[in-house]
């Protein structure tokens, strides 16, 4: 990099900011501490970018209980038989070598006065800036008859890994001509097209192994992401297999009995052979424990992803309530970069650039039949607002759909390299 005029101004600004910033002064000789909770698309990206770009000027600690993180995005492709589970697993070795202090533990509390995070394994970690990216948890009692103790009989498979493997095994074990049911979640939830890509992948799996099987979807919503594209695809590839029951036909009036393996939709009881219950969602528990949630989610300022409740706590990804962006890994990754730039600026006086966000969600309907939807976003004083967008069209040629799928595979390689190295 050449030392040009702008870089010089940047350095001058940095020096001024350092002198005028009480935070940095208070930190004295010690380096400022950033603690990140949650090592997924939001948290791991933020930790990596802050560590890399601050070049050692900031201590970055990432708290993530699992050693290997399985991405929820692309986990439907595992169900469809297009990916191995191992290909969705990522470890934190690269982050560690790049200077992130990776702590495999659960964060169980936040003391906002003392500015510390307490760990399940004992001890506390001090922070100057705290970034929470804990993903989702489920709303208690969201689906009558289901709670976490029922997740083995009726898996949610909405946190990828053993749940996804369990669901696939149960679908593969269905008797010939059996019934698979999905209870779809109400808005807002992680990955808007996710349940419908899953329906497509389950249909693909059943078409190969159990072609007379049926799929019932009970949905509390009247419409869903990429609805026309999915419905076209289901008609083209899985004719007569998928019965989607939306809001107007009582799809939201659902209870389940995990012991009897029945699903009751608008009063009609159906015996099912495998059942995927995706309950209503809320911010990961630590956001609530930190006291930065309002209702189910944590409201944030779009300019830097800081919470409305505490200027030193930031929330990324699925847990935050920011405006127009869908809850997706792509969104979390995009928000993390804006947040990392702002946090670094606040702690070291480095240049802070304007917030820009983007998202694209690819979904696979059947072999080589990929579709996508995407948009760009900007921060306004009220929220993160959509700027421009696009969506795949119905009736596209197979050439376009195949290219879209191949692009999604390239994207997966790209984003996971960006997050985990």
């Amino acid at each position, binding site marked *: 990099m050449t030392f040009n005029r702008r870089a010089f101004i*940047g350095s001058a600004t940095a020096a001024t900011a350092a002198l005028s910033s009480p935070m940095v002064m208070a930190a004295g000789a010690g380096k400022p501490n950033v603690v990140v909770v949650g090592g997924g698309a939001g948290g791991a990206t933020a930790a990596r970018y802050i560590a890399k770009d601050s070049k050692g000027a900031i201590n970055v600690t990432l708290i993530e209980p699992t050693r290997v993180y399985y991405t929820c995005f692309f986990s439907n492709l595992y169900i469809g038989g297009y990916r191995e589970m191992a290909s969705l697993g990522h470890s934190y070795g690269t982050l560690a070598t790049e200077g992130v202090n990776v702590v495999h533990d659960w964060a169980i509390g936040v003391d906002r006065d003392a500015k510390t995070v307490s760990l399940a394994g004992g001890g506390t970690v001090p922070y100057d800036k705290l970034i929470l990216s804990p993903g989702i948890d489920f709303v208690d009692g969201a689906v009558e008859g289901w709670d976490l103790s029922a997740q083995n009989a009726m898996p949610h498979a909405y946190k990828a890994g053993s749940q996804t493997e369990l669901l696939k095994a149960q679908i593969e074990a269905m008797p010939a001509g059996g019934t698979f049911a999905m209870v779809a979640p109400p808005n807002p939830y992680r990955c808007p097209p996710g349940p419908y890509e899953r329906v497509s992948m389950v249909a693909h799996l059943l078409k190969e192994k159990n072609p007379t099987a049926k799929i019932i979807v009970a949905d509390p919503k009247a419409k869903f992401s990429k609805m026309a594209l999915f419905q076209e695809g289901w008609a083209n590839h899985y004719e007569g297999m998928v019965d989607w029951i939306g809001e107007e036909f009582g799809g939201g009036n659902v209870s389940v009995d995990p012991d009897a393996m029945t699903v009751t939709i608008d009063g009609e009881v159906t015996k099912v052979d495998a059942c995927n219950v995706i309950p209503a969602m809320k911010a990961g528990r630590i956001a609530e424990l930190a006291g930065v949630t309002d209702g189910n989610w944590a409201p944030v300022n779009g300019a830097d992803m800081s919470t409305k409740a505490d200027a030193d706590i930031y929330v990324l990804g699925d847990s935050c309530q920011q405006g127009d962006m869908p809850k997706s890994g792509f969104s979390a990754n995009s928000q993390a*970069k804006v947040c990392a730039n702002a946090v670094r600026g606040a702690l070291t006086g480095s240049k802070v650039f304007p917030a820009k966000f983007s998202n694209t969600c690819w979904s696979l309907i059947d072999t080589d039949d990929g579709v996508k939807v*995407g948009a*760009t976003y900007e921060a306004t004083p009220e929220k993160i607002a959509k700027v421009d967008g696009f969506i795949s069209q119905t009736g596209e040629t197979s*050439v376009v759909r*195949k290219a879209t799928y191949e692009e999604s595979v*390239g*994207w997966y390689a790209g984003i996971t*390299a960006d997050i985990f190295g």
Partner: protein
Amino acid sequence: MIRGLHRLLVFATMFVAGAALSDVPGDPDRGATIFSKCKGCHQVGPDAVNRIGPHLNGIFGRPAASIAGFAYSKPMKRAGSDGVVWTHETLDGFLENPKALVSGTRMSFRGLSDPQDRADIMAYLRVYSDDPSNIPEAEPTARATDHNVDPAILAIQGDPEYGEYLSSECKTCHQRDGGDDGIPSITLWPEEDFVVAMQAYKRKLRPHPVMQMMAGRLSDEEIAALAAYFKTLE
């Protein structure tokens, strides 16, 4: 990596070479004679079939790599899925230098440097395209638009530090190490080529909805900043 780079040079070359476009309506009879250079691989006319190359009936208005059953090269397929359609303009660029437009194409032909030769051969092929009317206003022989980028835009000195920040958005899909499976390589571009390509997305000349959207909200300075940054990556 080099493959990815070439693929992008294509349009750059095409835009910059815009001025040399053979925009004169050609002579189909002379074109028929010149077509003898193509006959070893391509057929055109009532009984034309695919041989080493695809048949050329109805070439105008046809998306690249769209004849079912013909074994196109991977780069040609990508050109097709990215939305390249054979028009007077694209075909002219391809005939001038096939590998500049579609790097890695199996069409082993050095190209026709004389604009009149290209115009003549297109006039000949045009006879075998559907509805070849309206010379010279409509396809296939409409005049090309000028795709040159304003020299003032090319002269903007980008701020690589800002470019690095902006690039984080690119790196969600494009790999920093130059990998190009499914999504093209973004590293090691000459600055000017990068700017020309991004400006073409911004103006929706190059196809691809995601790139049109991403480039669409970048200012000229931001595109220059990205070009300055990506040039530094190895």
